[in-house]
């Protein structure tokens, strides 16, 4: 049940002033604080989308858990996929501090009413994809998420600190796998290059539409939910990744990619935004498969959760 207002005579304009001052001073909004309804709604949408991405994101790599070609890689990948489940749990909990409910959010994911990161709708064709997802996809996620550690909403910001630490492990694990594979056979090197070719552009799309076409960004920046624009973060990712690609010995699949000597930043070619729209709207290679798996996990096992509730009721345990 939501807490009653601390002072019912205080009008909303005054509460709004306090909220604005808190955000302006870079202090945190906490669950007990008054907040504008739009702020709450935006946060729930963003945090849920992030949580869904973690959970759906278990699948592309999870496909290789049973087939990982060494026991060390299997252990590393298991630990990573397990971290992702953990991230989903923290994030759903953060959303619950805003009055959302995990079960309801899961239903919204499965019914297609809420989105998740479009990147996870691409298939993982070889084991090199596991490394490239760690390097590029988790690398892009880190660029997106490190600034969120300073997000204005306290529970989200705090969850992101832990998430980012673990993501940085994952990024290194991925890169280390690729380094090892590049030192292996010609076939392995070809596998790595092929995976980079397939994942590079979708990774750039992870930062969202260009600033000129990102309707919610300005409000989110004003609220301190978002700290940098999509294009700014995308540029940062490219600048960070190019030297890593050189060290690894792979080619990034963009003939226009070049260092601008004046700005010290990299210019890159046009992104296929139609592809992003198609994949987000459900027409990616694996959308149906990803959702079907979540639906099956929920529906096929519903009886077990019902049993747990029934047992808790019978035995007076906390549900």
């Amino acid at each position, binding site marked *: 049940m939501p807490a009653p207002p601390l002072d019912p005579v205080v009008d909303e304009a005054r509460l709004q002033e306090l909220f604005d001052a808190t955000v302006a001073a870079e202090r945190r909004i906490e669950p007990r604080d008054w907040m504008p309804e739009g702020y709450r709604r935006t946060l729930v949408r963003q945090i849920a989308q992030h949580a869904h991405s973690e*959970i759906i994101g*278990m699948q592309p790599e999870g496909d290789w*858990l049973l*087939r990982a070609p060494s026991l060390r890689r299997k252990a590393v990948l*298991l630990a990573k996929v397990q971290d992702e489940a953990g991230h989903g749990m923290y994030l759903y909990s953060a959303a619950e501090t805003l009055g959302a409910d995990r079960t309801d959010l899961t239903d919204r994911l499965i019914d297609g009413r809420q989105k998740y990161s479009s990147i996870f709708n691409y298939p993982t064709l070889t084991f090199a994809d596991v490394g490239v997802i760690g390097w590029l996809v988790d690398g892009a996620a880190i660029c997106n998420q490190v600034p969120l550690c300073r997000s204005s909403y306290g529970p989200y910001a705090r969850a992101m600190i832990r998430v980012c630490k673990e993501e940085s*492990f994952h990024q290194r694990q991925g890169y280390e796998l690729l380094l090892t594979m590049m030192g292996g056979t010609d076939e392995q090197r070809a596998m790595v290059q092929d995976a980079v070719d397939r994942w590079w552009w979708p990774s750039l799309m992870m930062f969202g539409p260009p600033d000129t076409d990102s309707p919610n960004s300005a409000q989110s920046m004003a609220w301190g939910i978002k700290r940098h624009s999509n294009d700014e973060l995308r540029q940062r990712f490219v600048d960070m990744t190019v030297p890593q690609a050189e060290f690894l010995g792979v080619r990034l699949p963009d003939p226009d990619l070049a260092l601008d000597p004046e700005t010290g930043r990299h210019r890159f070619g046009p992104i296929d935004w139609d592809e992003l729209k198609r994949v987000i709207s459900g027409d990616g290679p694996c959308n149906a498969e990803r959702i079907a798996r979540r639906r099956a996990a929920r529906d096929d096992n519903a009886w077990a959760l019902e049993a*747990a509730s029934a047992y808790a009721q019978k035995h007076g345990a906390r549900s």
Partner: protein
Amino acid sequence: METVYDALDAAHGGGGQWAFGTGFDDPLVGVDTTVPDGVDPADLGAYCLMLGDDALVLAQRLTEWITAAPELEEEVAFGNTALDLLGQARLLLARAGSVGVLGSSRDRASATVPDEDALAYFRDADEFRCTGLVAAVNGDFARTMVRLLVASTVRLAVLTRLRGSRDPVLAAVAAKGVHELAYHRDHAARWVLRLGDGTAESHSRAQAGVDAVWPHLTDLFTATDVEQRLAAAGVAVDPADVREEVHDVLATVLTRATLRVPDRPGDVPPRGRTGVHGPELTELLGTLQGLAREHPAATW
């Protein structure tokens, strides 16, 4: 401008361990690997394969649940349990390799493949020494939890005794493993209680799980010659010694879960421990080993 890694780098320190799992190439580093006096290394290696293969194969089965579990907490629990078992398997397979027990795996795996992987990826099913209990398919969540209860009860009973082994590696693996196994058994037992004493549907599923798993108890408690020799030398545990304890624990949990405890199956000579397996192990190994065997010269 803020660099995305600055804040994170400091938290992890440097050194060779810049990513999880790096810098630990030899799993037995720092452990005394001397074979105890009067023990045949071939016996010791064979015994390590029995315990190691049980852990590896059960870890693989539990991993099948990842992304298919009833709730996120169970995804994490399956992952944790599988990781614990995988860790035990790696130490035990490495130990088998260190005493020269590699079967035909070394003929197939290239020299750069470590012993643990040669044994896990390049042996055929008939060289595996796991029991039918762990090789069996998962079935539904109830059967999976009943099997985990039985397997962790047996393994906890064995490892508890193995802490006093004259082999320092086995003793060390057991000392660490008992803490892990106690959690696995507890986790499985709690689910068996909830399912057995939950709804009519969960009760019937749990009972079906018990009935499906029970026949696998039949060859668990008969020692192989290797186990008998090593048990006499104070290195291994004779599985017959844990029979009563295992049945007592299982009967206690099942009874509290309002489930019917099936009759004890009669003891038969060991099957899985001597390399006799059903098609489900071949299938499991096909998945586990496929990629590694497709690229025998690769480095991962």
